[in-house]
């Protein structure tokens, strides 16, 4: 064990593995004493503190699953998530908990207990966590992940010798715990006794990350591409020779910015990871080698090859495999695949299909991502097949934004679209088919229904929405509208 090593650095305070183990054991004993064994799904308010991380480990040792809710997300949405999962207990480290109608366990309370890190026996099909992402009908969509899924992820990444953490590593954990990328950012450092550096909720993320790289000499970075997009104007001031690994995921990584960024981290291996929440964070990656030629399609870096035991298949609209070089929808199979959306038959029928492979009935997930495989077996990312967009790494269904915007402004046509700002980041725009009116009430309402990253930052009024020849809304024309009258 690494008892005297630092496990976490949270808001400038260090916690050793010994201290962390103590807190895990305390929370574990309270869970054990308070919550019935049959109660498996436990709510977790994701504050940025040691207790919240300890609660995840405590729940896992007790064979339970965490259902994380972000304290900055509207309370109504969080309560909806607990309603959907029938969560009765909520672990909360806040001074005052907002969950009045749930049984709240305060993780800040200290009790006398021995360190006990022996996990209870669990089976592979038991749940480890459920994350909720944007849904098309205004109701968030739950993705349950099992212990078997998490074990699959760990063995796939550990099998790969290119990425190998050691206990002296200092690792960035910049993600909200409701975002699946956070799982790899805390799990792998903990498995190797490395130290995890988090970002305080009120910090300006981009500069805080740079401060950590610069002052704490971080060695392992796990980030979404938007971080370097925003830091790009200042690249000439960044020189971080201590960084060994930099993993990107949660959005398209452009080859040109990857190349500029690699000059800021001269001794670093860069990985472009791919993987949907439904496939337990990572399903594969492309290693970026700055000295060699790298593969890209329309400027977007290749997503490489699948990890160990992961199967990729590119299919046409009839779910039939297409030949090498032909674009289609990427489908995934293997042991990291979610058992299916939480109580959502309609969505499951749409997103999963089975196929006979030999004697086995293999289950595939349709990612909604368009890809093709090249002659050497590398997969290239082409684009999305639907109206889902990525905003700062978060998946957003444009129709969910439209649904809530229309709720306050009946009979008005509203279209949400993603637009690129000058730094190459996606931002959300709302095109409203109407004479100009005061949108304050609409925005106030949307803020009670959706997390901050889903609230549009640009609004345009338009006399008539543009349509293409086949009657569909012409989103390309709408995007131009936001470009030409930029304010």
């Amino acid at each position, binding site marked *: 064990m690494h008892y005297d090593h630092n496990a976490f650095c949270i808001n400038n305070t260090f916690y050793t593995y010994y201290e962390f183990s103590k807190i895990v054991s305390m929370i574990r004993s309270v869970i054990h004493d308070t919550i019935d064994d049959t109660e498996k799904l436990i709510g977790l308010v994701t504050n940025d503190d040691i207790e919240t991380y300890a609660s995840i480990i405590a729940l896992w040792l007790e064979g339970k699953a965490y259902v994380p809710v972000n304290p900055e997300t509207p309370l109504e949405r969080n309560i909806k998530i607990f309603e959907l999962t029938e969560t009765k207990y909520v672990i909360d480290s806040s001074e005052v908990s907002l969950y009045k109608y749930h049984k709240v366990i305060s993780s800040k309370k200290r009790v006398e207990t021995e360190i006990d890190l022996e996990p209870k026996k669990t089976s592979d099909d038991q749940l480890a966590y459920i994350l909720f992402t944007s849904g098309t009908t205004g109701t968030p969509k739950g993705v349950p992940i099992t212990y078997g899924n998490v074990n699959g992820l760990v063995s796939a990444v550990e099998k790969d010798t290119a990425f190998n953490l050691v206990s002296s590593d200092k690792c960035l954990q910049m993600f909200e715990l409701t975002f699946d990328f956070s799982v790899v950012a805390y799990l792998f450092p903990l498995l190797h006794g490395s130290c995890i550096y988090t970002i305080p909720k*009120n*910090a*300006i*993320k*981009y*500069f805080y990350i*740079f*401060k950590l790289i*610069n002052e704490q000499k971080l060695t392992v970075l796990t980030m979404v591409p938007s971080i370097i997009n*925003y*830091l790009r*104007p*200042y690249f000439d*001031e*960044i020189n971080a020779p201590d960084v060994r690994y930099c993993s990107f995921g949660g959005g398209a990584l452009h080859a040109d910015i990857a190349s500029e960024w690699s000059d800021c981290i001269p001794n670093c291996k860069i990985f472009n990871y791919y993987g949907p929440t439904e496939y337990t964070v990572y399903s594969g990656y492309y290693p970026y080698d700055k000295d060699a030629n790298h593969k890209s399609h329309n400027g977007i870096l290749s997503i490489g090859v699948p990890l160990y035991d992961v199967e990729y298949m590119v299919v046409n609209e009839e779910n039939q495999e297409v030949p090498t070089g032909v674009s289609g929808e990427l489908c995934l199979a293997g042991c990291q695949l979610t058992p299916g959306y939480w109580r959502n038959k309609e969505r499951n029928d749409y997103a999963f299909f089975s196929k006979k492979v030999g004697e086995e009935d293999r289950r595939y997930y349709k990612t909604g991502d368009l890809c093709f495989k090249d002659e050497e077996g590398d997969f290239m990312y082409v684009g999305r097949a639907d109206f889902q967009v990525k905003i*700062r790494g978060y998946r957003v269904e444009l129709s969910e934004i439209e649904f809530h915007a229309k709720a306050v402004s009946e009979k008005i046509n509203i279209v949400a679209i993603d637009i690129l*700002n*000058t*730094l190459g980041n996606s931002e959300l725009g709302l095109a409203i088919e109407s004479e100009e009116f005061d949108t304050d009430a609409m925005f106030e309402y949307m803020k009670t229904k959706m997390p*901050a990253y889903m609230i549009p*930052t640009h609004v345009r009024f338009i006399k008539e929405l543009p349509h293409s020849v086949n009657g569909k809304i012409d989103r390309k024309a709408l995007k131009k509208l936001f470009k030409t009258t930029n*304010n």
Partner: protein
Amino acid sequence: MNKEEIIEKVNTAFVNVLAHSNFELTDETTANDVDGWESITHMMIISEIEKLFNIKFKLMDLMNMNNVGDLIKTIQSEI
């Protein structure tokens, strides 16, 4: 440019990005005091200020900016 003029221009940048003016900027104002001022909008405000003043901030200065007072001091040193 005196401090009042700088504050006025900074105010314009905030209004342009945040699309509201329900705030008063003083030396002590931080992101916690202004509705909508968070990581992303901060980056947009910084780039708006760079445009309005025709300056370019240094990452080292941005990294240690804790309130509007720090921001104004940095602008003063750049213009």
